């Protein structure tokens, strides 16, 4: 697609959509490679958002208190805050970042994933609000059998 076509396409779709949806997928591994190699949660959050100032409210996070199998720990999290991105970190593995969601207008920011943790630790969920502030929830849990060794 050449530039002229791309422009008219963009303008056309902007005019069509009442809320202009960003249809382009964002790969945060390519956009922010340093997030994924950071060894601490603070460093990972700083590399992603440029700040570590977290407001601990408005984010729901549910995990078991004791994970029987560290290879697949269910983590449920959601927020009603109008969000730009939602990200998950933990401090039990060599690196911290687990997942980053780029929130689009259809995304209700209500998720459930299964993660690996090699030992007991703390899971941090960060919601980057459209207001530019960082909201978070933290939960510590015990891990009976580590998930990164098997």
């Amino acid at each position, binding site marked *: 697609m050449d530039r002229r076509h791309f422009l008219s396409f963009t303008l056309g779709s902007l005019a069509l959509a009442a809320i202009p949806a960003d249809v382009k997928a964002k790969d945060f591994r390519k956009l922010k490679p340093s997030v994924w190699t950071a060894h601490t949660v603070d460093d990972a959050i700083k590399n992603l958002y440029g700040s570590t100032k977290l407001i601990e409210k408005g984010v729901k996070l549910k995990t078991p208190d004791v994970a029987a199998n560290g290879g697949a720990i269910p983590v449920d999290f959601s927020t009603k805050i109008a969000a730009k991105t939602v990200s998950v970190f933990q401090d039990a593995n060599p690196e911290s970042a687990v997942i980053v969601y780029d929130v689009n207008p259809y995304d*209700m920011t209500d*998720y459930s994933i299964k993660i690996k943790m090699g030992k007991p630790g703390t899971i941090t969920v960060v919601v980057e609000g459209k207001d530019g502030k960082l909201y978070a929830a933290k939960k510590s849990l015990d891990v009976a059998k580590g998930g990164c*060794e098997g």
Partner: protein
Amino acid sequence: MKVKAKLKNGVIKVKSMAKHGMVTYNQAKKKTGNSEDANFITHITGSINGKTVIDMSTSQFLSKNPIFKFKLKGDEFKKGDKLKMSWVDRKGKTGKGSGKIK
């Protein structure tokens, strides 16, 4: 990739599973002696009728054969529309799957 989507009261509930080993650097090092053999899904996207509805950048710390559940606003979509999902891993391999909204 398995995709299940259910529309109810304007909300699409999605359950999706990718078949992948999600091998971490430590696991690879233990197995082959080379941590560069690590391979895991790095990016997953999903769309309905050409519109991106989910976009996830992922790391090696998702479980093996990772499951993703999420909710979407369903006002613009109807039963029978297809949710198409695809992933790419560290080695550049791709996978995809789709499911009709029920």
